[in-house]
């Protein structure tokens, strides 16, 4: 514990704010990460691979409350720190990996909206990436004394071999033209195109003179293009974080599930075969999403063979190199350690300012256990929220006795929303019986 990283006041504020709101903080994960050093190491290795031009896919499988999202965020933060571009999105019925009704494009839009760099970790960094690219081209043009646009086109030439690469290059050039000529509309259109916001090809042709748009069928190709583009812009790679994959599992239509899993298989194959570069995928899901042999990934034979655990990793040996990374659910001890971390954070790293003794932590946990039962540590969200609130009260009222406050902590058992059926989930027509009346 002596090796604690120093705590920046801003990080402290953000973390405490997020925790008290019951969401995963955007930054400062290192202050509250508990354990999982092996998993982190494995992912660090992945990031290194991405930076070196490789590609990876990781399925982060954990139960509800086991910290998948936190872990994904942590990795995302690390990726940003390592000068990568990250995009992230939660899947939901309207955002899928494969669809015909625009849901895949919706996912792409969401990803691009959340595109982050280290300096813009909250998203919306798409123009930054583009401009970084143009800046380098500009610089090069200046040094060579040649046309900027031709430098851009020349540099993007390698992209044109890929699917949609030509139009992509066209759009980037368009952005430059817009900037160069002060045509903000053009710039905006280019960004809109990159974000997948054109819904018709006609509009795109009118606006940018390109024949294609990002749609359901090519959004993954666009991501691949974009990863290369990030690399060209001076970033070390692109990390795509997709959470809540359980939503695919919950798709009521078997056909829809299958096509989505096919998309996952494609991603997996590209990654394993190295046909995508500097692209990493992090997919968060629950065990049933993976293991269910009727509806989960295991229902898809080709995926199942690729995702199966390493047969040699047994008898105490572990293999973190497989595509599936399983996160153990939290044990009471984990929660305890987490509470100590939060207390430490709250005291800004100064043990003398701890608002609660160790005994207090235990009493708090006992209290939670009493109120909620076993669930309190399996789904720690409520526990953490209440703990942070308790600390807040203690901080503002130095005279208050934690023992008295403890009894007022209210806890409600949490349900697992992942297991709830989707509301208003649409189904493929062919799988549903048509209703009719005579």
């Amino acid at each position, binding site marked *: 514990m002596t090796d604690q990283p120093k705590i*920046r006041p801003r990080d402290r504020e953000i973390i405490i704010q997020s925790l008290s709101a019951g969401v995963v903080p955007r930054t400062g*994960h290192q202050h509250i990460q508990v354990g999982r050093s092996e998993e982190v190491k494995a992912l660090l290795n992945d990031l290194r691979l991405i930076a070196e031009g490789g590609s990876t896919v990781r399925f982060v499988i954990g*139960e509800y409350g086991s910290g998948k999202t936190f872990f994904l965020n942590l990795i995302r933060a690390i990726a940003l720190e390592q000068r990568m571009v990250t995009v992230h999105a939660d899947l939901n019925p309207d955002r899928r990996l494969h669809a015909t009704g625009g849901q895949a494009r919706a996912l792409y839009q969401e990803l691009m909206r959340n595109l982050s760099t280290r300096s813009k970790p909250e998203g919306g960094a798409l123009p930054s990436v583009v401009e970084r690219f143009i800046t380098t081209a500009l610089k090069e043009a200046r040094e060579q004394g040649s046309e900027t646009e031709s430098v851009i086109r020349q540099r993007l030439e390698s992209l044109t071999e890929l699917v949609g690469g030509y139009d992509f290059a066209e759009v980037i050039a368009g952005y430059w033209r817009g900037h160069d000529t002060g045509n903000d509309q053009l710039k905006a259109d280019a960004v809109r195109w990159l974000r997948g916001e054109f819904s018709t090809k006609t509009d795109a042709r009118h606006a940018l003179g390109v024949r294609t748009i990002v749609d359901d069928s090519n959004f993954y190709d666009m991501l691949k293009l974009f990863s290369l583009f990030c690399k060209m812009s001076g970033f070390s790679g692109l990390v795509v974080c997709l959470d809540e994959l359980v939503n695919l599992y919950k798709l009521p239509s078997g056909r829809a599930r299958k096509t989505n899993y096919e998309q996952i298989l494609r991603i997996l194959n590209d990654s394993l075969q190295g046909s995508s570069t500097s692209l990493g995928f992090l997919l968060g899901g629950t065990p049933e999403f993976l293991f269910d042999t009727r509806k989960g990934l295991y229902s898809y034979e080709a995926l199942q063979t690729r995702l*199966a655990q390493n047969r*040699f990793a047994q008898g105490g040996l572990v293999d973190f190199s497989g595509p599936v990374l399983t996160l*153990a*659910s939290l044990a009471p*001890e984990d929660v305890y350690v987490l509470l100590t971390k939060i207390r430490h954070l709250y005291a800004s790293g100064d043990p003398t300012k701890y608002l609660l003794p160790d005994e207090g932590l235990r009493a708090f946990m006992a209290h939670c256990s009493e109120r909620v039962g076993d669930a309190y540590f399996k789904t720690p969200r409520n526990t953490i929220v209440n703990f942070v609130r308790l600390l807040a009260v203690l901080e503002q009222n130095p005279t208050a006795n934690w023992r008295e406050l403890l009894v007022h902590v209210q806890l409600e058992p949490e349900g697992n929303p992942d297991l709830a059926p989707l509301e208003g989930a649409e189904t493929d027509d062919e799988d549903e019986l048509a209703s009719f009346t005579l």
Partner: protein
Amino acid sequence: MISKFRSVSPVHLWVRGIVGLAAGTFGLLLFAGGGGGALLGLLSMSAIYLMMKRYEREQIEALQIVSRRERKNAERERASVRETQGSAGVHLTSSRSSRSSAPAEVSGPPLRPEHLDSVRSLPLLFDASHGNERRSRSPDEFWVPEGQEIRLHDFIIPGGMIYVGQGLRALEEQRRGEPALIQPSLSVRVEDTKVWSKELDEWRLFLTYERLSERDRAFYLQWLAGGRCDPSAPIACVFLFFFGLERRLLFDTRTSERAQKEIPALIAEIERLLGIYGEEPQFSRYARELLALSRLCFLQQLVIEETPPPMSPDGGFSLELLVGLGARLASRVPIQGPWAFSWFIQHPLVFLRTPARRCPAEFERLFLLRFEQMYPQGLLIQPNKTKLNLIYEPANRGLPRYHFDSSVELPDVRVLQRPMRKFAEIAESGMAELESYSRFLGRNPDARGTAQALSLLPAELLPLMGGDVLDSFRKLLESKLSDQQFALIHASELLSLWSPGGFQKLQKKSAIDLSIFLEKLGFALEPDVRFGSPAINPQGKIVLFRLQERSQRFPLSQEYEAAMVLLRLAASVAIADGNVSPEEKEHLVAHLERLLKLDGGEKARLSAHLSWLLEEQPGMGGLKKRLESLSPVTKRQIATFTTSIAGADGYMSPTEIRILERIYKMLDISNEEVFADIHALTSSPATVPVVVARAQPAVTGRAIPDPPREVASQRRDKPDQVQVPGSLALDMDLVQAKMQDTAEVASLLANIFEEEEAPLPPAQVPPTTELSFVDLDAAHTQLLQALQAKGTELTLAQFEELCLERDLLPDAAFDQLNEAAFELCDAPLLVDGDPIDVDWSVMQEMCS
């Protein structure tokens, strides 16, 4: 009751008054002997009463008969003398055989009536001839001594030892003549000597030479001529000859010195006959009895026979047995099993239940076996005081019963009660053991000797009674198993031996019998229906194994049954991915053994069962019902266990998962928990060994001991920490481990998020407006300076304007500046938004 001790029928008794008297005496004697037992006493009493009544009546009748008989005899004698003289003469002259070649003059008995007169009266026990006025002649005159050849009709009879002649009287009054006497005057007809009147065999004891048909006489003479050794000869021949020997041995010896000298030869002759015709029970009985008594009384030999005499064909004690037993007691020789059995079985009051009657051989073997076990040295019995009366009832009806006089007094074992009680105990247990076997034979009379019947025998009897069937089983088992622990064979191989007829389906009962049978041979098989396995599939395979300890028999413990269910489920899971890795198998057995308190025999059976399960893969049919009765806690344990089995090889195949889903469904556990458990199993980090099940001392009286609760980290609550609400216990060791892990990850992350402090002290950096740090080119540095100079709130528009002035793209510039800030101070300079938030402390640092 009397008839039990006598070899004659009651009808015969009836007409013999004198014999009746003897019987009465005998009965009285018995009464004294059997007085110990109330029943025996009662029976004896009534027998005696009847006997007395009968005796009185017979006395009267006998007197009448005697007076009638006297007259008749006188007439008959006269007639016979005439006839003999006439016919013999005719016969002799008509004989065609050359006299010169005849070895001797026909030394037929003297035919003159005066010879009869010269016979001294015989000092008989019961003088049967007292009413006879005409004394018989000396028997020596009729007796052809041993070795003397004689020619009768056309037959040359070597060896002698027969009475020949005319007029030798029987010693019993009512008989006309000596039954054994060959009367040369009676004609013979040699036609087909092979034919012997069958009924004669039935009336063997009432035979006389005289009454034989011509043809049968020829047959008899031919047998004699043949040296009395044709084993195929009818037993009546032997008896007829034996009659003569009896008379010579018992009665002639009283009067004749010649006869006395012949005793050894006579005994030897009887022995010889026994050697040839001893198979015939009735003859054997008379001959043996006579022999035993003769040896004892005439030769003064107290013979301790090794084996008891065969059972008397008429039931009841044979005199020989009594003599043999008496001799043993008198000589203080312990009673061995066979003697004890004979003693027991021949006791008239012994009632044998059906098992012993239906399976006498098995019963005898079992009796001997148990006796041997109980009295390895034999049973030593003190001789009692009651003396054994040696009364011989000759086979020859022409002879009265004979009272032997022995110098050695033998105890009469018939009165002994205590040994009988011991024997009865042994016999009763034996009959009980044979009951199921007997019942089976009762239902299936043809099944004797089949494996199914044998399976019901007590194990010790198997080697004795098994025969070929047992050998073939042994051979199969030994050849299959040889030195292996288990052998997997086709069920048909075993079943063809078990039920040679073959069948489609093995009945449960039959399957159980088969298992028991194998157990008796020291083997066992799986599946065994007794242990909850499904029935043997005749088309499938079975696993054979040796029973380790004989004591390890059915029933096995409750734990075992639980283990079976678990194993079945677990095997289904292990089989699921197509191949069963050695690890999975090992894991299965090891965990079951650890979880459940099983002993050696059970472990062996469990392993065998597993081998079978893995081979036959019987699926999970029929399990649902057995699982239903389990408590939710147990179900939960089973579920977790099966999951741990599936993951034992570190690999969870979809098929395995599918099976697990089925099992969970059977256990009424929701599907989600399957995945949760699988996840928990696969997700435990390597920081601590995966605890699948904690070894705990099994609690007796529970089907399954404490749960394999702690699947990975999900259930790390230690068993000693009681999870009652309000009292929470933490595993501080674990906390420490986690703290350590956390510290590790913290430092790891610290390296990432907080790049090494720039080693450059600010003093070394010249405060110039030019590039103060590596990453920024001139344009960006200018921008930075412009921002610093601006010093106030920065709107997005202002920022873009500043960028454009320097021909920079605003977003790129924003990024670039931040990058530089990160490099330097590990924090961004600008934070996105409108207005843009500038971190002045960073700015300070950057521009310093």
